[in-house]
């Protein structure tokens, strides 16, 4: 196996975040199941709240980061910003999917229906389609650079559109009032529930940060390898007919990729 290199700064960051996330999350789960009181009318199903709300928070946070990455890429065409948007979009899609699943599982016993056109849930469903559009635009663009540009456009328009979608769905809902609002979040939460929610929020946010740092490293490594493949391709003696042979050129390229 490769000899163990002294862990550099980013490796420590990853392991640190990972450990912290695990600790806080286990605490959160424990509190969600045991510490928090059982809701009077919804019973234990209400505890899904401690997973559903953090997921929703991360879905929107991830879209916010995609927005930042997209604006950064549009402004400075920096590959780092594109990586930020790419990584956050992938995580955003994962969390948005989980919001929808946990939302409908929670809704089942309360509305005895799997879906409810509730403002927050509906907006998340539309955000879910925007993420799918984001990946398709990147995949169908034909080449990586164009895909990044198109994705940045969708990232900016999508992120600005989400609050507008939320507002319009909310107004639309007032015309069709639904019996029970899904989550009981808000100031009237008893303290023990609020504390549990905050711990869970912190835990999942750390998880998001951990996955983001990891994902950014993977995307960075991919970009570096693609760069070397390009250099080999353009090298005088390399010709495009054969398959990729990067070895001959690797020494000249700075050792950044080896650590």
């Amino acid at each position, binding site marked *: 196996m490769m000899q163990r290199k002294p862990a550099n700064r980013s490796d420590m960051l990853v392991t640190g975040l990972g450990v912290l996330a695990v600790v806080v999350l286990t605490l959160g789960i424990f509190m969600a199941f045991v510490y928090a009181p059982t809701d009077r009318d919804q019973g234990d199903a209400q505890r899904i709240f401690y997973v559903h709300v953090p997921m929703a928070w991360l879905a929107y946070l991830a879209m916010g980061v995609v927005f930042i990455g997209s604006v950064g890429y549009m402004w400075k065409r920096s590959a780092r910003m594109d990586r930020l948007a790419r990584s956050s979009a992938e995580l955003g899609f994962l969390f948005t999917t989980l919001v929808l699943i946990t939302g409908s599982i929670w809704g089942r016993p309360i509305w005895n229906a799997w879906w409810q056109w509730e403002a927050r849930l509906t907006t998340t469903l539309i955000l879910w389609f925007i993420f799918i559009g984001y990946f398709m635009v990147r995949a169908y663009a034909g*080449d990586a650079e164009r895909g990044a540009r198109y994705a940045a456009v969708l990232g900016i328009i999508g992120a600005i559109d989400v609050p507008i979608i939320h507002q319009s769905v909310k107004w639309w809902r007032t015309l069709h009032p639904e019996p029970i609002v899904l989550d009981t979040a808000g100031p009237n939460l008893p303290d023990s529930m609020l504390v549990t929610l905050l711990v869970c929020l912190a835990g999942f946010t750390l998880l998001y940060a951990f996955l983001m740092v990891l994902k950014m490293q993977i995307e960075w490594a991919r970009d570096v390898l693609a760069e070397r493949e*390009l250099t080999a*391709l*353009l090298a*005088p003696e390399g*010709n*495009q007919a054969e398959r*990729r042979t990067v070895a001959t050129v690797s020494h000249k390229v700075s050792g950044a990729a080896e650590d």
Partner: protein
Amino acid sequence: MTGETPYFQIEHVYKRFGTKVALRDVNVTLAAGEAVALLGANGAGKTTLLRTLATLSRPTRGTVMAFGVDAWSARPDVRARIGVVAHQPYVYPELSCTENLVFFATMFGLSNEQTRATEALEQVGLIRRAEDRAATLSRGLLQRLNLARAILHEPAVLVLDEPDTGLDAAGREVLSEIVRSQIAGGGGVVLTTHALEYALELATRVIVLADGRVVLDDERGRVTDDTVAQAIGGGAVMAGR
């Protein structure tokens, strides 16, 4: 050659499409009064090089300077000073010849669109078909309309991708006249063509591309027909200028 900045100066330009390398370490300069004939077999990278000069395609690596500035960042200014003819016609079949040229004259920001359109039509010998729709023109006449569009705004450089395709004898004469007057007026021309003898007749300099690489780049006087033909066919690397 006078010392002022060359029209085009491209250095170490690479262009790749997926795993195919269309241009490999290409260095070309075009100065005032030069008519460069860009020759080479199909797929040698001629069109890619032309599209790079015309600011339609961004090089993967390398620099493209036009009129002394970085072509890509000053695209609108560069495009105002070059006239381009590509494989596909840029004119609208549904519009008449005059309507097409008046439209493009407006887009080029000319004030006297109508007069300029008529002058261009006369220059390419299409004045009789001025009010006919472009769709009714033959391949050769359509190419002349394309040429008229490229010279509307009196560009400094003409970038012509196989402009002679479909032209009859009269059409070729029109093209030669345009190239000659462009050179005489101190402008520049870069054109690709498959008609070897036609190219050698017009060009002041010959560049041969093979497999994305420049294999010959020399004054027209210093090359013979067969050295060029051999370069195109053999793809042997010859020390150019």
